[in-house]
């Protein structure tokens, strides 16, 4: 204020000056605010375009070419041939590749299993942590450990735990008499996907639990008391009070987790060496691009991965916006 009052007299002295300038050029306060807002947002937009928009456009571009990984500058446009092409009564391209569809199936299966298990266990943990007990703070901190461990480390760790001869998982199962001979968790195609799911659930349950816990703590305790007076038992209180009120936060957490799970790569790649039984769509794209040096096909696969993730995310957002309960509690 003091600064203002000091500069006021001189500007008052030249008061006619703005009028002397072209009257139309004086921007309104609203316009100036909008300008300042764009200036402030610009760095973020430029950065986003550089690291997300540009690579995406490049990938889209290459998906229509026959470029190879080592010579990306030599390419011919091949139209949609990388996606799907028919020649001599046979079909080619990513969409005609059975391995792609295997990867799609694997990815959807992985996503459905791991996210629903995460939601289930995350909810249990969140409800538990929402209760008052001694050592609550320690538990809340400790629960974050799996989330903090890098995925590569998680994969290696679980790789050892699942080891068919020295692994702790087989050891425990044998000791408890649940199995008679050690299981080949990683090598056995029917088991390897479960190994991946278990490792992923272990790693990401803390995230889900903390998201849900934050939502649970927003619910005032007197709502539960009112529900008790109204005669609601524990399950009814959960179903009719808790669940609708945490739904918006739950959907956001699910979007995060589903998008992460659809893009899964490193855990599977390290834990099961990208075997066909567990290959994900990201793994497929990588294989085309790096192992086979097929930049065009790899790009086409990447674009399909992107479209799939974006499409499912859009569905979730749509559900969130139009679901009755989600809409209400968000407001």
């Amino acid at each position, binding site marked *: 204020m003091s600064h203002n009052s000091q500069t006021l007299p001189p500007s008052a002295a030249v008061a006619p000056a703005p009028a002397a300038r072209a009257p139309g050029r004086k921007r309104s306060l609203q316009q100036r605010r909008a300008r300042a807002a764009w200036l402030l947002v610009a760095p973020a937009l430029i950065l986003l375009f550089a690291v997300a928009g540009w690579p995406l456009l490049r990938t889209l571009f290459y998906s229509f070419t026959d470029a190879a990984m080592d010579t990306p500058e030599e390419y011919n446009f091949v139209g949609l041939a990388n996606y799907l092409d028919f020649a001599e009564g046979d079909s080619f391209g990513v969409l005609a590749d059975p391995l792609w569809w295997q990867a799609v199936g694997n990815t959807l299966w992985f996503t459905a299993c791991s996210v629903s298990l995460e939601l289930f266990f995350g909810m249990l943990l969140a409800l538990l942590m929402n209760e008052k007990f001694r050592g609550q703070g320690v538990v809340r901190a400790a629960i974050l450990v799996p989330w903090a461990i890098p995925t590569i480390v998680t994969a290696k760790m679980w790789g050892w735990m699942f080891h068919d001869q020295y692994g702790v998982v087989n050891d425990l199962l044998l000791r408890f008499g649940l199995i008679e001979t050690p299981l080949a968790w990683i090598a056995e195609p029917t088991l390897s996907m479960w190994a991946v799911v278990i490792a992923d659930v272990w790693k990401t349950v803390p995230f889900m639990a903390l998201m849900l816990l934050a939502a649970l703590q927003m619910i*005032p305790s007197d709502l539960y008391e009112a529900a008790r007076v109204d005669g*609601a038992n524990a399950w*009814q209180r959960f179903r009719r009070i808790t669940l609708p009120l945490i739904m918006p936060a739950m959907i956001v957490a699910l979007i995060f987790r589903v998008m992460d799970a659809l893009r899964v790569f490193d855990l599977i790649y390290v834990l099961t060496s990208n075997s066909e039984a567990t290959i994900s769509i990201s793994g497929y794209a990588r294989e085309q691009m790096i192992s086979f040096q097929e930049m065009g096909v790899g790009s086409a696969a990447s674009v399909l991965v992107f479209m799939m993730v974006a499409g499912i995310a859009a569905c979730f957002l749509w559900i969130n916006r139009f679901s009755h309960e989600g809409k209400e509690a968000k407001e």
Partner: protein
Amino acid sequence: MAQLTLDKLNKRYGEAAQVIKGIDLQVNSGEFVVIVGPSGCGKSTLLRMIAGLEDISGGDMYIDGVRVNDDTPSERGIGMVFQSYALYPHMNVYENMAFSLQLAKLPKDEIARRVEEAARILQLEPLLQRRPKDLSGGQRQRVAIGRAIAREPKLFLFDEPLSNLDAALRVQMRMEIAALHRRLKSTIIYVTHDQVEAMTLAQRIVVLNRGNVEQVGTPLELYDHPANEFVAQFIGSPKMNLMPATLVRAGEADSVVRLWSGKDLVVPIATPASAEGTKVKLGIRPEHIEWGSVAQAPNLADVLFVEHMGNETYHYLDSGKLGEPWVVRDSRRSDIAAGETVGYRLPPEHCHLFDESGKAFARRAAGNGASRIPGVDAPPITFAEPARTNALH
């Protein structure tokens, strides 16, 4: 409508903290009882124990003669209105009121009938499809009450229901709650820290302090015959003035006290001979002190400041080294100014006398000199152990 009986009700947290210390109380069918006390006195805890939201550590609770200590809130058949209203934010007004009825698996048309009846009583019909966030404070309050009404409970519990409302709305809702009670004739237990709410709403007031019942009685009984210093000062605003004195002559009809100023005053209060010579406190309400001329009045004091309310005037008199200033309320406008010296008189028929422990001696005079409250003939208060014997049991 139901009768509620509390028998030596106790609440303990762990070994040390006893927050409710053996409360005996009987609430008659259709009665409006207000539990009042300063914050932290245990009144909300007591209400939550009655509701079944807090466990009872000791003693028994009966509704219509049936012991309900181990019943859940809904089994006790109570309806509760929370201070924060505690409306379900994701349900509209109709769903909020219907929730308990749906849980009780009532037929749909019965639910609709009851909710519409409650909505009609509380004028909520145009709001049934709204959600709590689209309602004003007073409307939310009415929905909270409607939710309790729809259950047709035996017992209504109100936990400081008006404390979140602004002053004007509070007065309006107070009248609505009083009208509701006349209409439903239900048993209501109402907790508040506001003695004005207690005085205006209650048929009987329970004054609670540190987990003990200080006194139970009609509003005017408490005003005219407070059982002890605490009740005397808690009920009435501005609060009763207390002046140090010595009991120089005890008597069954009149007693003589010597005021701090050395003057003797004969008051129509019975005191036991054993109390003669002990220190006592003389209590007098602000509206009962009378002005006198400086030349003739028995007492003189300097006026510290004067508050003009328009309809009445408060004068704060310097009590010297005795502590808080004494308040004199004049129902007229006053031309007395701060700094003036005034003479005043303490009319003996309006005086209260408290012994050293704060217990009141029995007054012969009734209240403001007005006739006794109809239907209350026997002196309602006995003075031995106020916490126990005053609870109507």
